């Protein structure tokens, strides 16, 4: 029903889910989009319980960006 009512939105949501899974994010790092992908922005949330942990996850993330593993997400931006 939802797919029939919102065909493009649901296809974007599915593609976004696949792109995030394909990026294989570090643990405790979550990417999300606003409702309806409004505004062409994504949110990246990182949870950590020590500063070393944060540093490690940021480095992992940076590596993903440099290796262009997050490049498919560019289509949801601006």
């Amino acid at each position, binding site marked *: 029903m939802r797919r029939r009512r*919102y065909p493009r939105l649901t296809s*974007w949501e599915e593609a976004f889910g696949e792109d995030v899974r394909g990026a294989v994010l570090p643990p405790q790092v979550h990417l999300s989009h606003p409702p*309806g992908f409004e*505004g062409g*922005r994504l949110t990246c949330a990182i949870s950590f319980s020590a500063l070393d942990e944060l540093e490690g996850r940021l480095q992992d993330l940076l590596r993903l960006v440099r290796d262009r593993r997050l490049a498919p997400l560019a289509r949801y931006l601006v």
Partner: protein
Amino acid sequence: MNAPPFAQVEVEPEVADLPFTREFLGRLPGGLPVRIRSPGEPPPTGKRTVHLTREAGAFLKPCPCSPGAVRCGYWVFSPVFQCPFSCTYCFLRLYAPDAPLTLYANLEDAAREFTRQAEEWTGPVRVGTGQFADSLAMDPWTRHAPWLVELVGRFRHVELELKTKSDRVEGLLETEVFANAVVAWSVNPPRIIAREEPGAAPLAARLRAAREVVRAGYRVAFHLDPVFLEDGWEETYRDLLGELFAAVDPGRVAWVSLGTLRFPPRFLERWGPALRGHREFFGELVPGEDGKLRHFWPARRDAYRFLWKELRRWGGVGLRVYLCMESRATWASALGWAPDDGELERYLAGAGASVPASPGLTSRPGAGTR
């Protein structure tokens, strides 16, 4: 003068002797029923009835805009409430479907309120009467337009916008022109006007009127709102822009606004059955931050990009274009800049920085590349 867009007039006794009431009644065609109401009668209903009454509250209010949207600092001045036209998408169909054409006869109070507020404003301010009414549709009988132009004329930091879908500019053509009066037309391609704007003037008549007021010395504005994103819309809106700027020199266009279809979900609960066949209302409209349904974001963004580019092609890069009820993120993404608080008012008044040449180059006027 054409027949008025109303069939009867009901007058509250307390305003029966006010100057506006006497003048309005004096302009009516013979034979039109006029009735002085009894005290305590329930208010009349229906858009074919004019209700002459007193505004006990404020005539002048800030435009409510929409939560999360970039505000343009607009003020709404309302000597009239309700519109004789029946546009399918109009929010008045939801909020006041049965309200009569209400004319507030205590215009001396309105003038005092406006003057007091205008003396307090310091920066550029736009004020319009076209939010809860059509600014000119009733003008042959109300003569509000000449009164407003003269009232606002001496406040050079205030711009009066008279927004209409009519061609009733007779009153404006007979009055002294003040530089801070802008006559604005809400426009759409002819086939959309025929389908979605019953009772309103055809595009050709609106543009003929625009040409006449420009010739008289006024500036004009255009509102492409709502843009209907139906099959082939790019071509029909490109043709529309061609017609606008063939009719009016871009140098005389004060501003152009853009907006796409938007309405709260309960609009469809109320009007859905009557809108059968109007496909746009049942398309892929997604609830936004403010709860209103709008076109899915990428479609809206691409539409604004297309129209902004076309507007600048037809009207030049100096043409002032803004989005109505859209977020900063949408502005930044679609137009390449997003105004800060107060910046849009200065931009529209011609006192702000110029905007980037093409979308996506800078985050705001004057800023470097991203």
